[in-house]
């Protein structure tokens, strides 16, 4: 069972998979992911050239497909190669700019073409996935806005040219109302970045904003629309990350089965042992369930509640399953699964990272309950 693959989608998948298979051996990937920049400007440019970033956007947004299924397909392929290039930032930044209207067309185009790199900065030290928890302040001035505050664990922030931030125009720290979403040039005065490496490679950073002066047109959304936009963007993150995790789980599945069939103990391949066979099959069935959940989410229905429910269901399922797949893959590999040498460990680490991005299992469970009034 698979995503419904149209001819166009098959070609897109082919393009990505072939490119990554060519350019992205695991050792090359690790060199790039664990480097000072956490990604490769050259490979990013080549992938953008192939239209892989543009595939995340609709024609109106300047791209060429951009349905939920296309987004899922791209990220699943990226997951299979454990690609640390800043696609998620591009997707989320682009969607935010698109919501900001015609004034942001230039920046949007530069994101869709891959010329500029985007990052989104929603989390803060205390926010723990709650999008409405925003202490960073935006003060209206005669010439625009003045932003002050901190943003935490912003993926690829050091590499980014454009950063989307949430800041509070009014109200209390946890209010859903009173927010503003701003598009900020990364080289603006008063913006400081403390960049660090992630557990699975790639980079993130802490953002400090001190009297950052923004022009009025930097505001993408405010009031109720701001929180709604935050949720919409987070929704794209849920879909993209869930699909990426699926790609990673597929790889771990195949490599673990392969290992079980090769590794000999007691004079037979260990895959002959029923205890391991059953564990392996249960893992595979869990991955199938996760795949169904992601497909359910990929339809991105217009109804807001239905859409959010499906997205949370997918992220929750993928988080729970991903953690289990990571642990079981390592366990069934034995000692060698613990080594830096083996791809398994890097794939497993990325799964754990994904679980924690844009809401973990508990967060999405609580959210699902809120949404569906269980």
């Amino acid at each position: 069972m698979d995503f419904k693959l149209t001819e166009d989608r098959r070609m897109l998948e082919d393009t990505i998979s072939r490119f990554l298979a060519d350019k992205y051996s695991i050792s090359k990937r690790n060199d790039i992911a664990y480097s000072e920049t956490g990604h490769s400007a050259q490979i990013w440019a080549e992938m953008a050239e192939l239209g892989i970033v543009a595939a995340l956007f609709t024609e109106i947004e300047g791209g060429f497909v951009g349905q939920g299924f296309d987004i899922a397909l791209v990220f699943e392929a990226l997951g299979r190669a454990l690609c640390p290039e800043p696609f998620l930032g591009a997707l989320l930044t682009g969607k935010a700019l698109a919501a900001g209207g015609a004034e942001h067309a230039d920046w949007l185009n530069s994101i869709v073409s891959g010329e500029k790199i985007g990052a989104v900065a929603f989390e803060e030290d205390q926010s723990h996935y709650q999008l409405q928890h925003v202490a960073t302040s935006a003060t209206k001035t005669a010439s625009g806005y003045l932003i002050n505050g901190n943003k935490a664990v912003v993926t690829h922030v050091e590499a980014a040219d454009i950063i989307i931030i949430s800041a509070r125009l009014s109200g209390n720290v946890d209010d859903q109302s009173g927010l503003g979403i701003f598009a900020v040039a990364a080289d603006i005065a008063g913006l400081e970045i403390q960049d660090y490496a992630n557990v699975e490679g790639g980079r993130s950073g802490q953002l400090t904003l001190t009297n950052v002066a923004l022009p009025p047109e930097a505001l993408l959304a405010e009031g109720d629309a701001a929180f709604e936009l935050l949720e919409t963007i987070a929704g794209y993150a849920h879909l993209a990350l869930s699909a990426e995790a699926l790609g990673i789980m597929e790889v771990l599945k195949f490599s673990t089965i392969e290992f079980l069939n090769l590794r000999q103990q007691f004079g037979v391949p260990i895959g002959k042992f029923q205890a391991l066979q059953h564990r392996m099959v249960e893992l595979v069935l869990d991955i199938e369930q996760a795949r169904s959940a992601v497909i359910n989410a990929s339809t991105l229905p217009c109804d807001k509640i239905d859409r959010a429910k499906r997205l949370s269901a997918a992220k929750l399922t993928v988080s729970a399953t991903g953690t289990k797949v990571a642990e079981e893959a390592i366990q069934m590999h034995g000692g060698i699964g613990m080594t830096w040498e083996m791809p398994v460990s890097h794939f497993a680490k990325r799964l754990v990272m994904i679980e924690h991005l844009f809401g973990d299992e508990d967060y999405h469970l609580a959210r699902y309950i809120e949404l569906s009034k269980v």
Partner: protein
Amino acid sequence: MQDIDHFRAEVSHWLNENCPKTMRTPMPDDEICWGGREFAFVSDDQRLWLNRMAARGWTVPAWPKKYGGGGLNGAQQKILAEQMQAINARSPLQSFGIGMLGPALLEFGSEAQKLHYLPQIASGEIRWCQGYSEPDAGSDLASIKTAGVDEGDYFSVTGQKIWTSYADKADWIFCLVRTEPDAKKHKGISFLLFDMTSQGVSTKPIELISGESVFCETFFDAVKVPKQNIVGGRGQGWTIAKYLLNHEREMIGGSDLLFGGADVCALASAQIGVDENGRLNDSILRAELAKFIIDEMAFDAHLAMTKNYMRAGNQLGARSAELKYLGTELNQQRQNHIMAIGGLGALIWSSHNNQTHQTPRQWLRSKANSIEGGTSEIMLSILAKAVLKMPS
């Protein structure tokens, strides 16, 4: 496209005209129409509904018309299912003939066998039971001992089957019999069809943990089975048996029965109450039910994709084990939740006026889901070997 729209309109119109009002309500277990010579219809409407659907071939929409089916293509089958669902139409007929024997006959039966047996299944005239398991042959099914001795025109069948569901209500049996005693285990089995009223057949119901008695011990004492009643060739029974089991597993795993019935959330809200935000008062149960519903949603999507895949003419093969495992594990969870929601009251077996209580019975019945049609452990082993190609 136009043809399809036309078909949809026609189906919708016909169903509205022909489906009796009483056949548009949720169907309790004891109102399932199984068909058969002895079947006692619960109402005239039930009989009418069966006959009307059978006349159109829509009890088995995918089968060819000449065998009593509807001859519908995949897209049409989907439309019929959707339109039936739209008016909550009950399934007009359920049977082992439809879900198990039919597909096997379509694949392995001779033309004469298909023309004879399939229309009787489609119309609900003949009810079938499955004679596979024996006291010493359960998971290790190929070790069956029931013997068919070659007597020229017929086999003389002697032996015992067990767990034969509805053997006491069925008209005919499809049965695994060892006809080639000298061949290797899997090669010595033949797939025989015979009338349960044949001389030498007897059944003894076994009571289930749920208090029902759906299955029997079935005894054969020198039962004469004409040689023309063999499906496929002599010694080919195992291939047919496995093929049929795949369909049985599809049927169990994809059964609407497993997933129809009460909405667990509504049940919980009514029983336990909700807070000012509309959430269940019990926060732990709330989390557990949410996880369950999320799993169920994923499985529904899986099932829908699987059905489309099959309607396009594909066979699931060994992957039916996946459907069976996931579907039945989920149903058991569902029943566990219903028990948890019910609290102490859920354990009441029957009320003072001898009304049976369904909750504990269905919960207990669901325990069989991971045993019947092949146990969950066997499903995992099949998937490991046949699908993941792990060593055996």
